[in-house]
């Protein structure tokens, strides 16, 4: 069955980092960017902001790298999840993720990352600019195609 994916659109991101606050408060009961599963990379001088978050790969390199078998796919959401109690804190997953999307929890001494909040990610819910969406891949791509082709219809009209 097709599963929803968390898509980011940097062209819409205003760099406000509301997503970081929503994530850390909801999941960790504290407010701190370092406890957030989603992070914004800011290029202040150029006015560009890039939301970065786990892609929840189908063949995750973090999962292959984990010697403790602590990383699994969630059967319902398809999210790649780190099982905190099984994690031995070896940092292998942090090194292996090609996108740099795994964090190390400063207090729990275990790796942590985005887990899609069980299928209703709070970052998406409170993103004020629409830069984050949680959608079926096909629907997302179709709407992107539609947006692109809309320009041509305007040109002809």
């Amino acid at each position: 069955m097709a599963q929803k994916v968390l898509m980011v659109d940097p062209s819409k991101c205003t760099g406000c980092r509301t997503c970081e606050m929503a994530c850390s408060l909801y999941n960790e009961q504290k407010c701190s960017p370092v406890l957030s599963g989603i992070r914004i990379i800011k290029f202040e001088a150029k006015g560009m902001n890039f939301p970065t978050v786990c892609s929840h790969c189908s063949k995750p390199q973090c999962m292959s790298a984990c010697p403790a078998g602590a990383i699994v796919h969630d059967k319902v959401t398809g999210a790649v999840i780190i099982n905190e109690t099984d994690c031995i804190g070896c940092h292998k997953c942090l090194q292996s993720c090609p996108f740099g999307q795994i964090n190390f929890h400063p207090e729990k001494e275990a790796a942590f990352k985005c887990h899609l909040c069980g299928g209703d990610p709070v970052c998406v819910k409170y993103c004020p600019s629409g830069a984050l969406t949680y959608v079926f891949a096909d629907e997302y791509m179709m709407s992107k195609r539609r947006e692109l082709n809309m320009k041509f219809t305007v040109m002809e009209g």
Partner: protein
Amino acid sequence: MYGYRGKRLRVDLSSKKVTVEEIPVGHLKKWLGGRGLNSELLYREVGPEVEPFSPENRLVFGVGPLTGTFAPSSGRCTVTTKSPIQDPPGFGDSNMGGHWGAELKYTGHDQLIIQGKAESPVYLYIHNDQVEIRDAEHLWGKNIPQTDAMIKEELNNYDIHIAIIGPAGENRVRYACMMSDVYRAAGRCGMGAVMGSKNLKAVALRGTTPVEIARPKEFFKICAQAREKLKQDLMAQMLYDQGTLLLTMPANYEQGWLCWRNFQKGHHPDGRLLSGENHRDNFLAHREGCFACSISCGRFSKISKGKYAGEITGGPEYETLAGIGPRIGLLDPASIIHNNKLVNELGMDSCSCGAAIAWAMECYEKGLLTQEDTDGLVLKWGDQELIDKLIKMIASRRGFGDVLAEGAHYAAKHFNRGQYYTMTIKGHDMSQDDPRGLGFAFGIGFATGRRGGDHLQGLPCLELTGGFYPGLVKKILGTSEAEDRLSKVKKPEMEKYSEDVKAVGDCLTQCSFTHSWSFAVLPEDMAKMVSSATGIDFSADELLKIGGRIVHLERAYWNRLLVGRLEDKSPRRFTEEPMPDGPNKGVLFPEDELIPLYYQVRGWDNETGFPKAEILKEYDLPQVADELEKYRTRYLKKINNSAECES
């Protein structure tokens, strides 16, 4: 500790001593946060005898219980100092957006106090509780983006947040500002000049300590509700769409308070060139949000055509657009964006920079300044080549720029000419808003403001946008008549209410646009947010009382400098020259009628404009009441002397 950090970090640049002080809970309850803590500290530590550029002056950064949390638009920071811009130099603070304030909170401090003076240029690097005073000799003379890039490279850390001064601050241009995250300004009151006087080029921050929340689930829910309200809010949506530039169309056409040519009139037939729509469709590269903001009014502009093609810069917002635009006779948006880039990068307040140039241009027009005074420059309204040159001359204090770097007030004093055309209050330049059209509550705020000519004293948008919220103005003030900008009804009460709310917002630190432009967040909502974050229960009334306390204390700061009733004066143009054209033709600001009423509402004495002893005691400021007594006597003498001089 929940919400708060309970700590202030003090750095003495003379002795290189770094200390951490505990802030007692009682003190936090009394002064709430950011602006409140800062104003109290300035009152206590920087007395009337301290000169703004002396090492004894303090540069204080303050954040509040909601800074760096999920509360909407709450990452701001208040910077407070004794300001060099006014005459006499007096109370100065400036509120800065961006992400710097939140980062300060994450270092584990509610306040950062800088005092003393470094022997040679330095910058600070604060990483949680580690403080380094680092050499900045190689950064001196560099502009804002250059310095930001160099420090990041040097520390090999690109996720730090840096507050920086440009060449203007180093040269102590009286209205030099401090910029953080490259394009966010603590613009007004010469923060950059004071920083420059301390030989401090920048403050770089990296903080990783989480903010603990007393009741996290409840706090999440309250913040989420406030965010939902802001999402549905028309004002917030318009601010997202056009930024504060949405103001130029109504300001120019329907309401007529644009500051055309140094406030000579409030309207120009081609004003639509400056509209938010035109900016959005032709110059907007990107919308930018401050920390945790659910509005994102910030703009990032790109010029794609003409002489300045290819230039990018943060901004402009309304005050900048109007200040280095129509106020100096300029209507070309590309030129204004270019000028904005210049002042941003050199580190100057666009309001006061525009004001100084506007004053000089009007004096030149009226024959009060000649080429002999201006190093041969011909000062013509809207001459972009000249404006470009003047901005650079001011920042580096070259030639005639050296005089304008003192600001309009001190420049007029220097020449002993053109005082009438300095659009200043207490020596500080008006922002780009004319009370003859903007509204009378705003007018009261300008005349009595704690910073001088300043629309942010109360930001009483109840008279501007209040009408969009059915029943709101009536609920607060008992009558909806006050929704009319040019009605006098309940305006003193409106200004007082707005000042109190604004002070609370500045303490928390929550952006004014959530509670004083949009009214999606009301004092009750703030009370819920701060109570669940800190675990200390505040009611809306208690918060407003703290707001009032801060206003009284800041007033007392001025009173100690023997500034009161006599100095609460708008530029004469607003009270003596009726608006010459546009929708408000014939309107004057009724200052003499409204100020006494405002004093009455505030509990300030009508003769001196000092807060009465009983009101200070009611607001739990008995020591301030005692201290002011001797100044009251001295001020009465000052009034008598000035009356004798006039007769």
